[in-house]
């Protein structure tokens, strides 16, 4: 609804990206105010429905916001298409932000249709546009939003939500939710309601439009709090900067006295990569996965690791994880408050504060907890999604994939500790895709203020009432219940509630077997021995480091981090407690599901982690049907044959790219590297040697 056809072209030939061959299908290419779409001519015959289908966006749909780059091919040469075109290409390549690549051949299309579709697509997806022209608004006015009930996600748009969160984290003794920003009196960047230390007065909040005010994010179980503050911009004027300094000193003084804990400040803009660095890294990184064909795939395979490293993306992930561990250490072990400082407090702050909470608060590892966290720190918190995703193509310099960075960091944790999360990596992947679906308001505003002013619609003549937007957290809009099941983690070790029935352990043996935290094995002696005690030993008895065999232990702050990190890693994991990621080189990995999912060469028929996951799901179904049967036997009911429909049919042969790849295109041919070897120049002598030098010609005589 609300979708308008803008232009179309017939007899377009879409290549199937599977092999070098020119196989493909004919169809119609259309562009609407919502998406670019390829309509297969014989689409009706396709009864092999993918099991994990998005209800909004089909296999051949690309939302306008999802288009990354468009290339035209002229005489075998690729050219980036932007703005006005003088010549029209014979082939169109569309790279998507969710990393799909489409090849359309226009050779058989009428010339004027080519002109219209190409310029239409380029215009609508690549040129600046007004906020109000986003499909979000047409959709909201055309589609009555009847998702009445709120789901479990806390939106943080009411005072109540903040108070509840304070209560949940027991932060309400020292912190209060304030209404100072009602009517956006303080700042348009800040949410209507937020939380500050009780001792901070309303006047001081108003004084510098909320700058220099510590804003509460979260309280740790020991009372230490995570705070953020938007810093003052560098001032030329001495007087102003004096005033600001005095103001800050005052603030620091009030909040570092009892009852407040010691305060540590973390200036994120000086200790983390800049937005520009992050954007550059991601731009290079994603390029590695936007692959045109098989030759491309194998050509980049030879130098894969150094290519990966040169993008710097994994290193950035590592640095953010490390920073989050440092913050966690301050909160957890040093029992001090941490104040994150950044100019706007809506970019790097969001990543770090969210990560810290995911690591320290097991509620953030449930689905609704994670969603509430995103609402709190990002959506209501004022992250400029519109600018950072460059949805309107207004200013390329503002673009930076911070939210993706968070998801990638969280993914690292998910793959290191699968039982600790209620959601799966598939959840994270579809969440990242949802960034580009303009029917949800969640990721299409810069701030709560911007959303509010555009919702009430003062200047709208066509519509009377305010818009009602959908939230991305209503997953039923995109997925059927069956597909939604893939977002929940079957390995999740649910937290045991202190339930009476569980005390009778003898009778409920199986409960204990099922709950992972209880069956944790004891710390192995191998791990256990690397404890603080040995440190003591080193210092007091034996002294001295020797040779290259002792890990460098020079500076103090680094040391306390290392000690914290090592001592945590030496103990068995409590999936409901503090969770620290491993950040050694080999532990930071490529989020294969998101980045490799559309590449046929990377497919493992019947392999990948999905193979084991599918077995677990199958077994769970079996257990459940047994349970049903037992209940029936108990109630002496007539035994009906309850056949649970297996969700993953033929699970042994799922593609490793499941649920994103289609299964029927399975070729029996193995993938063979086409270009493999590069010279081992540095080892020339060895290369030329024979295995064992024996003159065989001697044997002959």
């Amino acid at each position, binding site marked *: 609804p609300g979708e308008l056809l803008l232009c179309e072209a017939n007899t377009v030939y879409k290549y199937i990206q599977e092999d070098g061959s020119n196989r493909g299908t004919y169809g119609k290419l259309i562009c609407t105010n919502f998406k670019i779409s390829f309509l297969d001519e014989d689409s009706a015959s396709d009864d092999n429905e993918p099991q994990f289908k998005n209800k909004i966006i089909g296999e051949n749909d690309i939302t306008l916001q999802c288009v990354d780059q468009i290339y035209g091919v002229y005489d075998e040469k690729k050219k980036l298409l932007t703005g006005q075109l003088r010549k029209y290409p014979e082939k169109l390549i569309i790279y998507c932000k969710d990393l799909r690549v489409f090849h359309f051949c226009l050779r058989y299309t009428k010339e004027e249709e080519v002109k219209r579709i190409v310029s239409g697509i380029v215009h609508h997806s690549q040129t600046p546009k007004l906020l109000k022209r986003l499909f979000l608004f047409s959709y909201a006015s055309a589609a009555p939003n009847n998702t009445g009930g709120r789901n479990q996600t806390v939106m943080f748009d009411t005072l109540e939500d903040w108070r509840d969160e304070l209560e949940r984290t027991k932060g309400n003794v020292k912190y209060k939710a304030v209404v100072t920003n009602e009517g956006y009196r303080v700042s348009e960047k800040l949410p209507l309601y937020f939380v500050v230390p009780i001792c901070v007065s309303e006047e001081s909040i108003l004084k510098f439009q909320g700058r220099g005010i510590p804003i509460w994010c979260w309280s740790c179980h020991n009372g230490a709090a995570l705070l953020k503050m938007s810093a003052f911009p560098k001032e030329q004027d001495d007087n102003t900067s004096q005033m600001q300094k005095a103001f800050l000193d005052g603030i620091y003084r009030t909040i570092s006295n009892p009852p407040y804990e010691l305060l540590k400040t973390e200036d994120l803009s000086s200790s983390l990569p800049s937005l520009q660095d992050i954007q550059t890294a991601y731009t290079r990184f994603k390029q590695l996965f936007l692959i045109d064909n098989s030759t491309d795939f194998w050509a980049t395979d030879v130098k894969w690791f150094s290519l990966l490293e040169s993008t710097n993306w994994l290193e950035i992930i590592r640095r953010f994880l490390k920073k989050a561990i440092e913050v966690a250490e301050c909160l957890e072990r040093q029992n001090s408050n941490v104040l994150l400082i950044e100019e706007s407090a809506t970019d790097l702050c969001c990543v770090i504060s969210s990560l810290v909470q995911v690591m320290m608060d097991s509620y953030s590892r449930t689905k609704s907890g994670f969603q509430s966290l995103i609402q709190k720190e990002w959506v209501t918190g004022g992250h400029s999604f519109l600018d950072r995703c460059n949805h309107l193509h207004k200013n390329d310099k503002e673009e930076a994939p911070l939210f993706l960075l968070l998801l990638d960091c969280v993914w690292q944790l998910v793959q290191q500790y699968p039982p600790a999360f209620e959601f799966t990596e598939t959840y994270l992947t579809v969440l990242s895709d949802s960034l580009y679906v303009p029917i949800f308001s969640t990721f299409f505003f810069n701030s709560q203020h911007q959303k509010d002013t555009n919702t009430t619609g003062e200047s709208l003549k066509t519509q009377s009432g305010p818009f009602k937007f959908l939230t991305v957290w209503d997953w039923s809009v995109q997925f059927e219940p069956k597909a939604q099941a893939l977002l929940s983690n079957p390995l999740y070790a649910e937290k045991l509630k202190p339930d009476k029935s569980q005390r009778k352990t003898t009778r409920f043996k199986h409960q204990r077997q099922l709950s992972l935290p209880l069956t944790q094995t004891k710390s192995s002696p191998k791990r256990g*021995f690397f*404890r603080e005690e040995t440190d003591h030993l080193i210092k007091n008895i034996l*002294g001295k480091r020797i040779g290259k065999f002792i890990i460098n232990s020079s500076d103090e702050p680094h040391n306390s981090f290392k000690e914290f990190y090592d001592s945590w890693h030496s103990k068995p994991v409590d999936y409901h407690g503090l969770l620290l990621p491993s950040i*050694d080189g080999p532990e930071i990995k490529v989020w294969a599901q998101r980045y490799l999912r559309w590449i046929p060469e990377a497919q493992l028929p019947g392999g990948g982690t999905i193979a084991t996951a599918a*077995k677990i799901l199958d077994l*769970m179904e079996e257990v459940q049907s047994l349970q049903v049967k037992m209940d029936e036997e108990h109630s002496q009911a007539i035994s009906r044959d309850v056949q649970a429909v297996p969700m993953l049919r033929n699970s042994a042969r799922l593609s490793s790219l499941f649920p994103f790849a289609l299964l029927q295109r399975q070729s029996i041919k193995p993938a063979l590297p086409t270009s493999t070897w590069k010279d*081992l120049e540095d080892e020339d002598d*060895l290369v030329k040697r024979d295995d064992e030098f024996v003159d065989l010609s001697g044997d002959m005589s």
Partner: protein
Amino acid sequence: NEEIPRLPGETRVTDKDVIYMCPFNGPVKGRVYITNYRLYLRSVETDPVVVLNVPLGVISRIEKMGGASSRGENSYGLDITCKDMRNLRFALKQEGHSRRDIFEVLTKHAFPQSHNLPFFAFANEEKFSENGWMVYNPMCEYRRQGLPNERWRVTFINEHYGLCDTYPSLLVVPYNATDDDLKKVAAFRSRNRIPVLSWIHPENQAVIMRCSQPLVGMSGKRNKDDERYLDIIREANGQISKLTIYDARPNVNAVANKATGGGYESEDAYPNAELFFLDIHNIHVMRESLKKLKDIVYPNVEESHWLSSLESTHWLEHIKLVLTGAIQVADKVSSGRSSVLVHCSDGWDRTAQLTSLAMLMLDSYYRTIEGFEVLVQKEWISFGHKFASRIGHGDKNHADADRSPIFLQYIDCVWQMSKQFPTAFEFNEQFLITILDHLYSCRFGTFLYNSESVREKEVSQATKTLSLWSLINSEKSKFTNPFYTKELNRALYPVASMRHLELWVNYYIRWNPRIRQQQPNPVEQRYMELLALRDDYMRRLEELQITNNSKIPNSSASSASPSQMMSHVQTHF
């Protein structure tokens, strides 16, 4: 006086107070015990106790560090280099002859071959419920493959290793080739390693053959018998297509080999064969590559440029090439259009890797625990992979150029496959690690010596030593992958792309306490719990049905309601 673990047949030699210089956490005071099998260290005054348990077989080199006059604490002692990716360093007191004694004892027992002493395997008196020597019987294995048949026969020409002293006594060759032909062919193949059958496709009858390089030499010699023999092989699968020859070496090396009398099959001499080079490098390159890998993972994992450091070792690149080669072999055979002949220079390193990996891809039997044991026993041990030279069992010459991690590289390839297909193998990671540990330990006879002929002439191995497979098969559950799903006749092709190849952290970096190994693996554990629950439900359901059928009222008292018990199985449905 103190309890240290000891195997039956293991005897204590000496013990001494030392300081173990732990590379991760600094010096640890302890006592080291040396037996004829292991070096065992237990710390004193630490909680928890630090323990090292190192079979002497893994020791590659023992060096003295510091002299009697060295100053500085802990600078005097022993430095031990191991074959399993770690080093050990012990500091000793400078007085007396304390170091000389322990050095001599260690050297003697770590390198028994250099001291005219037997391996520990001959002293080992362990008892196992299974006899691993019974696992591999060549006749049974060939029969399993449907051999002999009307095109392929079993020959005993090598019964006393007269034809080829590095081949097994029992060989399978084309029916149409006489033993006389075989002798003539042997003259033209390096070390007489003639083309013989490794595996036959059950449906299309295409075969994998293995051999060594032909002795072409600079002058480009030809041999009519060899040419005819290859033609017989080509025809034996009933197709008229060409025979495919995979030369595992890089093209230049194959050419260079002509200078020493070797070479490859030229197009002129073998018009009915197609030759491809697989570009896999020699044993020296692989040895250097592993050395570089050790440098970046031990003791500390290279931090700042992990990926480019990893790439610069080329280790995974070599793995990729070996896998790629094996995929090509397997694909060619399973396409049924042609039989395949694989060789490198001598046909006992790269050739063994390629044939056994291709067989693993094509034949699901080899993906079971027993099948894999058979595969190793057949393609590696019986066909003369020179374990003694490549590993240097009990030999003090640590710099020997014959040493090379070829078998380790193969096991790594297998691990990569099992990682890509986690349900396709009956064995788990622990199985592979155990094989590698005992590749060095010298506790079992399995990997000792270079060839079947030596094994038989020097020792009657099966009666004097134990087989590693006895240990494994006696506690199979420890080595079983719970996710294994039996699938017959399904070819399994890994993707030999760097995007999927991973460093085997749980093996190469296992000594580093900072690298987390979640044991047991939570996914596996969850699955096991569900399995136990299912079995329990099935049992109780059966009981219930019996009770209900016999119409005894009041059956609900029997147990707690199952739905209560299910409260921790997540439901998504």
